[in-house]
């Protein structure tokens, strides 16, 4: 699994490629911690089109990051998601937490 991010002004885009297993959750966490050190971030979007499944550990990292960005007045959305991951997120009601756009 690979995860990268890019910044355009106050907007950050995080792209994840590959399923988020136990090791992948750690890599994701490292990137999210780096993003948290950037000033004036207003919006973070996640491209999860190439992620077909995630462990609960990966979901935990996303939720904790959401709580962080929300507490700092920012917003988080899933701008692209695979169909199978979308179904997984719906099963655990994450669509009630952040915006998820199914492409």
């Amino acid at each position, binding site marked *: 699994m690979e995860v990268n991010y890019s910044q355009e002004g106050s907007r950050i885009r995080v792209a994840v490629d590959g399923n988020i297993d*136990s090791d992948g959750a750690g890599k994701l966490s490292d990137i999210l911690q780096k993003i948290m050190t950037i000033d004036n971030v207003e919006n973070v979007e996640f491209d999860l089109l190439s992620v077909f*499944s995630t462990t*609960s550990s990966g979901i*935990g990292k996303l939720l*904790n990051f959401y*709580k962080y960005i929300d507490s700092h007045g920012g917003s988080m959305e899933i701008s692209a998601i695979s169909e199978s991951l979308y*179904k997984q997120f719906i099963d655990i009601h994450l669509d009630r937490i952040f915006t998820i756009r199914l492409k």
Partner: protein
Amino acid sequence: MSVNFSNILACGFQKSEISIINEYAVSHDLNLQENTYLYHEIFHDIKEDDILLIKINNQNDIKFIKRHKLHIYESFCIFCLEYDKRNLIYTYINHHNLPFFFSPIDINEVQKSFMRILTIRKRKDNFFKHISGLVCLNVEFEWKSCDVVISPLCSDITRIMEMGNYIHKNESDGITLALEEAFTNSIEHGNLELDSNLRPQSYNDSDEYEKLKLLRMNHEDYGKRLIKCRIFSNSDEMMIEIEDQGKGFDTVSFLKKINDTTPTRQEILTSSGKGIILINKYFQKITYDNNGRSIRLFKKRIPQGG
């Protein structure tokens, strides 16, 4: 396949270690051939009744073995690992289901290692006999919690399910992750008795969960508790059972909580149990037994033409 060995081919060992292996070989009427550095000479002519003993000293050794992996699959090997390289090699040999044993060697370790080989060899014979037809399978494994390497283990079980036509190829990734969830739960919440409430609820919180996990994994009372996995299949379905030696838990209340179709936003943000929902997604039936210490995952065989 015979489980009687005739020869030990040993390479990479120091003189003092070879003399210990030789002591064992002589007492068990085995022929010992040793080669300190030149692995390729040994790989040329490995027979079914040979045991190949290789000491992994560095990353180059494992690279060499990868290049000759076809030979390794044909023969039965044990690897003695230098402790500081263990993590480096652990994943590779687990992924390829190769048995391994740790240094330092003394005569008791050699004795124990060979007994393990015989046991694993018998299981392997039965295992592959069943795998080739996969009409029915009944195998059981057990590991200490501190020895389980979850990701490659779950990949291997997924491969078995694919070979037996219990899953489509496009389900493989999901099944592997579901199995990872099940094993992780058994190890962390079962054997290590870690409470999900210790997980950080934000990035500012210190990760008491991870700290305690590391502590308990290295603690004799927790890390050495066993995880047992039983895989049973017939013409209709496959069952994978994962059992821990923890305290168990109230499965009725737990399942009721996670089946709640209307959790509050706060509950979604903080609740545990997401792993079980993921497991539920990929297996047709899940049952608990033994007061929650045992979880059974069921998957029906795909009908022919399906």
